[in-house]
């Protein structure tokens, strides 16, 4: 008897071996450790934590290692793991006003209480390769010798003029009020008050969303949304596919503590710190006959140091408030269904990439149809050819 040759299972198992081999690369080069990725690829880890919706630096680093640095694949690993984790409750709201600041900049005020804190940023670097990073010396490289050098003659033991600079050792101000709060005290900023009864926020990982989506759902979706997608949407709002012209009220990066109230204790317990980036945009004002004009707010919050993500999110957040302010929702960034359904890169990647799966049954249906339609068309044309000369006479 003839039986079908089935190689599917063996072939699939072979792909697992091949990807392990490809991941490791040249074995003469030392293998990356998870700790190295966590410490030296921190911004990539932050992106994976955001899009994977799970704050865990070690797992983010492991995900990046396992995914060969593919951020979306790494986020997918995080998501598939987080969904299996037990939930023991919701934390207290984190207070970003109490953040231990690493970086805090405002574009709306030259100076303000707490001052501008530049912190670690690529913003003012020149994008020139630092070829010293090609080598792997023990000394800390990548520092600008013109700033950090203690004069041209002072070199350290390895002969590198670049030594760790003396940071401004003064402690930062204890209080760093958030810029929208300063504006709010004057009544100039749209107030953010919890809705009636302060209900528990929606959880889009446990319940299906419906439209129109409320702001808690929108912010949650954007927090896990693809950075590139939100960046493009935010950019579209700025360029004219949307009507917002915002100022960066403030961006702040730093650590906040997470507190949890166990039912059996009845008081808050500190669970640890999160590194967060918060962006609040000040947008053109809205008002009516009854309400005095106020600036409107766009809000972005992300895990780790991820300013681009937080800024993009705050642009789109404001655009999505179109309905609340009675603005026309003419552009993609203003339409919640468009933004929420398409910003999730794990879902989007799954559906786009599923086109790789076999589709030959459906394709055969199309082939059968197109061949038949063409055949019938030819037959029709042939019969018309026969009748035409008579009609011409």
């Amino acid at each position, binding site marked *: 008897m*003839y039986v079908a040759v089935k190689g599917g299972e063996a072939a699939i198992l072979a792909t697992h071996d091949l990807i392990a081999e490809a991941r490791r690369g040249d074995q003469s080069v030392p293998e990356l450790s998870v700790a190295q990725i966590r410490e030296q690829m921190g911004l990539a880890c932050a992106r994976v934590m955001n899009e994977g919706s799970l704050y865990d630096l070690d797992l983010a680093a492991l995900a990046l290692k396992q995914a060969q640095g593919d951020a979306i694949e790494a986020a997918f690993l995080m998501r*598939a793991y987080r969904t299996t984790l037990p939930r023991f409750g919701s934390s207290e709201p984190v207070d970003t006003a109490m953040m231990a600041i690493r970086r805090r900049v405002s574009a709306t005020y030259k100076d303000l209480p707490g001052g501008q804190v530049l912190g670690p940023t690529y913003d003012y670097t020149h994008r020139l390769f630092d070829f010293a990073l090609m080598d792997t010396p023990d000394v800390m490289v990548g520092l600008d010798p013109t700033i950090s050098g203690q004069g041209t003659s002072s070199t350290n033991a390895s002969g590198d003029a670049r030594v760790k600079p003396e940071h401004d050792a003064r402690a930062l101000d204890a209080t760093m009020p958030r810029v929208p709060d300063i504006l709010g005290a004057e009544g100039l900023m749209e107030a953010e008050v919890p809705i009636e009864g302060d209900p528990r926020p929606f959880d889009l990982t446990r319940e299906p969303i419906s439209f129109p989506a409320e702001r808690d759902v929108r912010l949650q979706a954007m927090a896990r949304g693809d950075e590139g997608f939100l960046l493009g949407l935010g950019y579209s709002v700025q360029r004219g596919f949307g009507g917002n012209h915002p100022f960066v009220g403030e961006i702040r990066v730093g*650590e906040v503590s997470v507190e949890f109230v166990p039912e059996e204790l009845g008081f808050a317990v500190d669970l640890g710190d999160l590194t967060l980036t918060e962006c609040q945009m000040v947008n053109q004002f809205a008002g009516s006959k009854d309400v005095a004009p106020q600036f409107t707010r766009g809000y972005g919050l992300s895990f780790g140091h991820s300013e681009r993500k937080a800024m993009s999110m705050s642009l789109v957040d404001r655009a999505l408030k179109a309905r609340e302010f009675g603005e026309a929702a003419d552009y993609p960034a203003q339409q919640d269904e468009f933004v929420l359904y398409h910003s999730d890169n794990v879902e989007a990647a799954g559906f786009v990439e599923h086109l790789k799966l076999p589709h030959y049954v459906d394709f055969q249906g199309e082939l059968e*149809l197109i061949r038949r*339609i063409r055949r019938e068309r030819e037959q029709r044309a042939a019969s018309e050819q026969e009748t035409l000369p008579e009609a011409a006479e």
Partner: protein
Amino acid sequence: MMTAQTILSPHPEEPRSGVSKDAPARSETSFETKPPASPQDEGCGETKPAYNYAYLDEQTKRMIRRALLKAVAVPGYQVPFGSREMPLARGWGTGGIQITAAIIGPDDTLKVIDQGADDTTNAVSIRRFFQQTAAVKTTEATDEATIIQTRHRIPEAPLNPGQIMVYQVPMPEPLRKLEPREAETRKMHAWAEYGLMQVKLYENIARFGEVTTTYDYPVLVNGRYIMAPSPIPKFDNPKMHMSPSLQLFGAGREKRIYALPPHTSVKSLDFDDHPFRIQSWTEPCGLCGAGDSYLDEVITDDHGGRMFVCSDSHHCETRRGQGHRGAMLADASALHLVEETKP
């Protein structure tokens, strides 16, 4: 079928020694300090997490079963459900997998097909998933299976009472191509406002002389809801009508479940003067000679050579076992599509 769960591994609600809990606490200015090496780097062996029977936790299974009960009660209605992140990609059958995980038990026998065949890549992957997480018996024989999870086909052999079909659905909304907004399509279903679909079919006929939808051909369920049958070829649509088996549809990415209880009317949309018709081929299966099965086209050379073979691999093999021989069996053997076994 939904009872008698064997818990093979600790319940997920119990604490487990996950990697993250053991991670060192980070200081307030963590960028300045270097915490000790994480557990992964020390190669801890005991941190491998355990998963619940059939992967999903029992709470989630209960939520999915509730959605299934509602779906069965209102045939063809799309029930939103809290679709979970799965360890397989969205769009690769996570809806069907979640349904199967919610209904499967150790006494079940599972068959998984993709394009009608048991050995296509996705079918192999999903079957392995349930072998590993649910320790379930699997089969390729359609009549032995209690649950058949499928993508794009319904088996050729008639299904029996008690069997459950689980369809993987990419786009559950049959009106989506006509109206992209979910808020609108839900209203259209609520009011049974289906004129738009009739107009689309009419325009098809006006332009091409017939309805040009060949798969995912819309059906009217129980005289009420228009439903997407998932991208099965329209060839399979008549098999859904009054089927004695329970048919469940899961769309993971779109977070919808819907169902056809046994013996439900399923009518493919058409017009009196343009009745619904299914695909047909001018030649029978090259391997088993079947003239009434759905055929796949296999390209055999680059000079236009091709043969048509049954898409349902089990059906084809069963027929060959019964002694049916197609005209191109020898060619297929030469191409290593089949091999002769000694009896």
